[in-house]
C-alpha cells in the first residue's frame, strides 16, 4: 500500500478570506469548530464530500486546498 499523509492550506486560506473563523467555516460546511481545528491540524481527514465543500467555500479546486504527501518507500 502506498504510504502518505494529507496536508491542507485551510488556515492560510481562512486568513486570506477575511480572517474567516473556524466556527464560520464549520457552519458553512456543516461541521463543528472542533472538527475544522482537527482537519487544520492534520489530525482528522475529512470525507471527500466535506473536502469538496471546503474547497467550494474558498472557490478553489480541491487540489489547491488538500495535498497528498506520498512517503518515499524502497
Amino acid at each position: 500500500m502506498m504510504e502518505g499523509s494529507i496536508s491542507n492550506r485551510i488556515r492560510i486560506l481562512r486568513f486570506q478570506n477575511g480572517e474567516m473563523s473556524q466556527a464560520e467555516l464549520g457552519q458553512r460546511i456543516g461541521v463543528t469548530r472542533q472538527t475544522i481545528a482537527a482537519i487544520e491540524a492534520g489530525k482528522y481527514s475529512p470525507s471527500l464530500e466535506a473536502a469538496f465543500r471546503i474547497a467550494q467555500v474558498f472557490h478553489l479546486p480541491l487540489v489547491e486546498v488538500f495535498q497528498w504527501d506520498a512517503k518515499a518507500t524502497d
Partner: protein
Amino acid sequence: MPYREKTAWLSLIAMAVAFGPYFTIVALRSVPGALPNLRQLGLFAVAAIAQVLILGAGHLYLHRGSPQDAGTPPDERDRAIMRRSISSAYYVLIVGMILVGCVMPFNSSGWSIINAALVMIVAAEVVHYGVVVLSYRRQT
C-alpha cells in the same frame, strides 16, 4: 473541549461513582446466590438511581453551559468516533455475554451471574466512552 467529549466524561464519572462502590461491596462481601435477595437488589437499585441522578444533573449542567453545542447534531467526525467506540465496546460485550451466558451457568448461579453480567455491561460502557474520550483527545 467538544460537547460530546464532555458528555462522555460525564458518563464515565457517573459509572465510576455509581458502580465503583457497588462492585467493591459485592467483591468484599459474599453475596448469597439465591434469588431474589432483596438486600442485593436494593444495593443495585441505589447504584442505578445514583447513576441516573448524576447523568440527569450533569446533562442539565452541560446543557445550560453551552445550549448551542448541546443542540448541534453530530457531524461526520462525531459519527466516525461514535462508530469506532460502539464497535470496540461490542467486542467486550459479546465476549462478556458468551462467558456469562454460556460458561457461568455450569459453575455459578443467581446473583453471581447477574453481577458478572453487570460487570461486563459496565466494562463495555467504559470502553465505549473511553474510546470516545481518547478519540477526541487524539484529534484535538
